[in-house]
């Protein structure tokens, strides 16, 4: 009765979007349970449906982490037989990547904002059901927010120092978009390729699929959206503080997700891989900071001769110390 009850509770977690959520705590508990028993197989065979229509979960009595790979395979084949995976030329194939609800997307975002050492993003939040909605629209939002706030910074700076030439700088939207989308597609591709190549070294833990990696990267970029908005505050050390915080959260989310896959490998490879991931992330953050929030020239010590165009004094009068970097 123990495993069955546990299984039923975990099954309720699997179907939480079909029934109204009764309480977050129940979901948390069930999700912890499901994550701790990684070799639990969820099958949707018609013969195993409980009367309430919940998915039955069968917990393996083995309990070894090494059985996970085979379990993943059988899980996938069970799903394939159930859903009859459409070919990649049909619309239904791509629809399967958008099979998420609002509450699921919000939950995944919350999961990326608060990374915890034991909780693997892919296992806990994605539950091996990656979606493309989150990464795509988070990247789009980030690109536009970067361009808009970068522009706003220029506007605010011009109010303080009218000699700065203001321009809409519309091409920056294109640059932002291309950079972010390339990052979220190419870096996971390289990472996935590398992990696949090292799969031969590690027999026990299967790597993530390409889409799961893309998903992890996409959701990890969410924390930069409020950070970029906060970068409007023209206080340099505050900007660096926010940037460092965001980078820490984001990189932590990535590292905690990759750690279970990478710890089987040799120390050297694991260390190099993780530090490369963090370094690339830091490069993206600082690159964006410098490109979109360009350091502006020092303010002139003498007031400019024609300071009459903007009589509004929303901002404090210019002092030599207040520069925008």
């Amino acid at each position: 009765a123990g495993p069955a009850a546990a299984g039923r509770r975990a099954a309720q977690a699997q179907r939480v979007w079909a029934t109204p959520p009764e309480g977050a705590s129940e979901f948390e508990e069930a999700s912890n349970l499901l994550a701790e028993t990684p070799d639990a197989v969820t099958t949707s065979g018609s013969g195993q449906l409980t009367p309430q229509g919940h998915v039955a979960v069968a917990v393996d009595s083995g309990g070894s982490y090494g059985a996970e790979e085979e379990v993943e395979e059988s899980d996938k084949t069970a799903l394939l037989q159930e859903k009859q995976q459409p070919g990649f030329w049909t619309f239904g194939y791509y629809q399967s990547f958008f099979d998420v609800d609002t509450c699921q997307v919000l939950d995944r975002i919350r999961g990326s904002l608060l990374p915890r050492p034991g909780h693997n993003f892919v296992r806990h939040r994605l539950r091996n059901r990656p979606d493309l909605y989150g990464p795509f629209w988070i990247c789009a939002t980030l690109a536009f927010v970067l361009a808009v706030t970068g522009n706003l910074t220029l506007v605010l700076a011009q109010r303080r120092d009218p000699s700065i030439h203001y321009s809409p700088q519309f091409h920056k939207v294109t640059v932002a978009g291309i950079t972010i989308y390339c990052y979220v597609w190419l870096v996971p591709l390289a990472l996935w390729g590398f992990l696949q190549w090292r799969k031969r070294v590690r027999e026990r833990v299967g790597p993530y699929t390409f889409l799961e990696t893309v998903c992890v990267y996409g959701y990890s970029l969410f924390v930069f959206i409020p950070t970029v908005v906060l970068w409007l505050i023209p206080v340099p050390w505050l900007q660096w503080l926010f940037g460092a915080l965001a980078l820490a959260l984001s990189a932590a989310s990535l590292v905690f997700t990759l750690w279970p896959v990478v710890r089987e490998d040799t120390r050297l490879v694991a260390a190099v891989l993780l530090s490369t991931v963090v370094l690339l992330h830091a490069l993206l953050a600082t690159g964006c900071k410098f490109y979109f929030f360009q350091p502006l020239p020092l303010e002139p010590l003498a007031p400019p001769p024609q300071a009459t165009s903007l009589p509004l004094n929303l901002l404090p009068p210019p002092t030599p110390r207040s520069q925008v970097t």
Partner: protein
Amino acid sequence: MAKAAESSGEPGTTSPRPLMRDLKAVGKKFMHVLYPRKSNTLLRDWDLWGPLILCVTLALMLQRSSVDSEKDGGPQFAEVFVIVWFGAVTITLNSKLLGGNISFFQSLCVLGYCILPLTVAMLVCRLVLLAEQGPINFMVRLFVVIVMFTWSIVASTAFLADSQPPNRKALAIYPVFLFYFVISWMILTFTPQ
């Protein structure tokens, strides 16, 4: 006979009816956008003339009077065009992938027509910019753009929200919000030099 001549619109006939009929249909849809109610007119008889007119008008008005260097300038005509149409197509694809039951062209039609309030905002902004520059000028433009932005969102939501499954409505509406936000930003930062 007259009916056939009216509906065919071939060069041999002498009736200008199809053009007037289309113009009237476009005008009627403009009215529906300005006073959004839950009606099916926009969805049932979709057409893309209205969106095309609006998009061209908006792109033309966003051109600056002087020729700036490429790097410094505002959006070029082609950029506005691409953003509007590419954005509308992306939102439509997104809505269909999430399981909405609206057809591709119906969705494009709705999104295109709902740019009308923002085009009106652009007109107003251009007129306001003829007066002297200053903070009041900016506040007026900001207010107009915000009001029209809200109007666009409300209008398009009234038409699009029903076609989505209930637990995914927010997922489908958010890209619409982003789309009109970007267009509003382009309108607000427009400065003729």
